[in-house]
């Protein structure tokens, strides 16, 4: 069968009522799981596994693709509404989205986030359909040096984003990376900073740091404000306002840059959507005419990062399908699910199960379109929660965080970490220490270490390998340029002002 024939067979499969229902169900489950702090996409995929045994292969795969697409978007809803990102990749969206919410643009912020995610997802889905087969060869030429360069770029972006003080951002980032080294080292099996305690040996999971720092800190700050009675005035019921074409035209630059960063970085292996989201936000800030306004609620930041996140999903799926190498926790779970259904992602997938592959491709593109209504419905549902009195909502958020922390690894040690980071998060806010570099340090630190050490062992400790390999060299130079650009720009401006020739 030719490509188009397969495409239409796939389309036919997806549009079958049962399959379509499964896809939509998956989307809703995914958005809900992504939005609830403490319930991850992984939980959701594991949750539906038993049901997929009963169904056929195609509906199960569509169900899981739906969860994946929805889950990537879901965290933005709670980010915009409550300042609690559901996943690290939603942090940049949260910065701008929550501020926009406070400024009174909550409906438009939700609508914009949904539309941008959908656009990013559709574009990357189409590219994935066209490019997957030739992609496998290129992807294999990347080695751990390239992986390291990508992670390095993510870390540079988060420092760039922190406008107040670069040195404070560095302290926060490296402190996060240090937290990431706690536990049994995975390369040598050596205990690091464990002080002989079992609680420390398991290491610190980044999701816990994220939820603790953001969610619990936020609840404490909201509830303990002086003069609060807790009865809570019922707040307005926000609507979801889908932006008009004219509104899109105004942000076309950010949209395109977000797409470019998302699709480009999605093709590189490494840390996936999280790095992409931070890099796109950093790039957007450096391109902007008013970078000082970032973090106070500007549309560009929200649009770029939201488009980039979903723009990178196609790349992650390509890695899974063409190479059999999952790029993130959620795709790893999906791969496990594929295997349990007797489908082996990897080089032979396109020859052995072409119909299934194209069904997923088409399903993936349609998922992103169906996400618009699904996202609106789910956003409305969560918006209702804004009318719940703060005292009740706060209690639920904290219990959810604790449950989610426990559920990640079924470990009571994580409950302690959750409580600890909740309190630390509150005080970091009070003392004006930037939280995002710390979170990103915990996430990317262990990855950076693994890639760096592996590269060094393979290259006999010759550090120049990061610059002599073309792709890794290029990415590192772009990162450095991203970092030094404002300084150069400021310098040029000054010179122009001095010599008005």
């Amino acid at each position, binding site marked *: 069968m030719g490509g188009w024939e397969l495409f239409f067979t796939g389309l036919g499969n997806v549009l079958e009522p049962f399959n379509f229902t499964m896809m939509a169900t998956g989307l809703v489950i995914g958005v809900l799981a992504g939005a609830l702090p403490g*319930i991850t996409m992984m*939980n959701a995929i*594991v*949750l539906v596994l038993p049901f997929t045994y009963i169904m056929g292969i195609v509906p199960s795969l569509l169900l899981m693709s739906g969860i994946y697409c929805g889950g990537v978007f879901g965290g933005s809803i709670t980010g915009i509404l409550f300042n609690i990102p559901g996943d690290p990749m939603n942090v940049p969206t949260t910065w701008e989205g929550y501020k926009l919410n406070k400024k009174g643009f909550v409906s438009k912020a939700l609508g914009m986030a949904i539309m941008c995610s959908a656009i990013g997802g559709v574009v990357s889905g189409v590219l994935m359909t066209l490019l997957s087969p030739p992609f496998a060869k290129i992807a294999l030429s990347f080695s751990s040096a390239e992986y390291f360069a990508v992670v390095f770029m993510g870390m540079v972006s988060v420092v760039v984003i922190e406008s107040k*003080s670069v*040195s*404070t951002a*560095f*302290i926060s980032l*490296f*402190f996060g*990376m*240090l937290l990431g*080294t706690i536990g049994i080292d995975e390369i*040598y099996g*050596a*205990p*690091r*900073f464990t002080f002989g305690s079992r609680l420390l040996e398991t290491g610190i999971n980044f999701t816990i740091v994220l939820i603790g720092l953001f969610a*619990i800190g936020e609840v*404490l*700050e909201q*509830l*303990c*404000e*002086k*003069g*609060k*009675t*807790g*009865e809570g005035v019922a707040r307005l019921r926000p609507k979801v306002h889908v932006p008009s074409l004219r509104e899109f035209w105004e942000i076309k630059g950010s949209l395109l840059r977000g797409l470019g960063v998302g699709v480009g970085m999605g093709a590189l292996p490494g840390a996936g959507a999280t790095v992409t989201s931070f890099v796109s936000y950093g790039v957007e800030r450096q391109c902007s005419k008013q970078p000082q306004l970032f973090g106070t609620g500007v549309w560009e930041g929200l649009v770029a990062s939201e488009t980039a996140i979903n723009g990178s999903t196609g790349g992650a799926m390509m890695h899974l399908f063409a190479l059999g190498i999952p790029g993130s926790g959620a795709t790893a779970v999906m791969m496990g699910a594929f295997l349990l259904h007797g489908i082996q992602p990897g080089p032979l997938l396109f020859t052995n199960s072409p119909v299934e592959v194209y069904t997923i491709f088409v399903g993936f593109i349609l998922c992103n379109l169906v996400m618009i209504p699904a996202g609106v419905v789910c956003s409305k549902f969560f918006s209702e929660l804004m009318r719940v*009195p*703060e*005292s*009740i909502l*706060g*209690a639920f958020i*904290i*219990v*959810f965080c*604790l*449950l989610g922390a*426990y*559920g990640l690894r*079924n470990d*009571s040690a994580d*409950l*302690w970490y*959750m*409580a600890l980071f*909740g*309190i630390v998060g*509150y005080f970091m806010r*009070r003392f*004006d220490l930037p939280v995002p570099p710390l979170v990103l340090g915990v996430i990317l*630190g262990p990855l950076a*270490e693994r890639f*760096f*050490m592996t590269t060094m062992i393979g290259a006999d*400790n010759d550090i120049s390998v990061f610059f002599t390999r073309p792709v890794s060299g290029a990415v590192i130079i772009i990162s450095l340029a991203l970092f030094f650009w404002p300084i150069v720009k400021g310098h040029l401006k000054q010179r122009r002002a001095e010599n008005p020739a």
Partner: protein
Amino acid sequence: MNIQANQNQKLPWAKAVGGPVFFLSFGLIGYLYAQLNIGPTPPGQLGPAFWPKMCLLSITLAAAFKLFEVLKQRGQPAKAGANALKAMDNRKLALMIAMIVLVVPAIGFLGFPISSVSFFWLFMRLAGEKKRLRMLLISVLGTIALLYLFVKVVYIPLPRGDWIFDDITLFIYRVLFIQ
């Protein structure tokens, strides 16, 4: 936090220097600890201590740079509105923090269901909720809903507690047809 705010007005400089000095010494002490305690480093390799040492050294350098910045700006007036913090109810804050810390061992000992009901009740009370019936209903029904979601649907075996509380939790599960 009020006391803190007053101190800020009196000693802005001490506060500005305090942070960097803390991280500077933290980095140095940590570096020493890593140097002495993490290992062994196999010959010809960077070894397990390399990465944490790199992080600690970078913290030290960044803190030194920050200190330099602060000292350079000494005498200049602080930017107005940089610390526009909301006034906080400190008693409430301390109690909430205590609750969040105490609920962790409580979950381990009493099991999730009992701890959760008590936590919901106390926390809402503390947050200012006054209607008792509503609080009771939310605590109990909320816990039951979470139990179903986590134990029954997502298969996360929540802590059942120690001693007789293990049996009590199991009994609660049976009554609710969770297990």
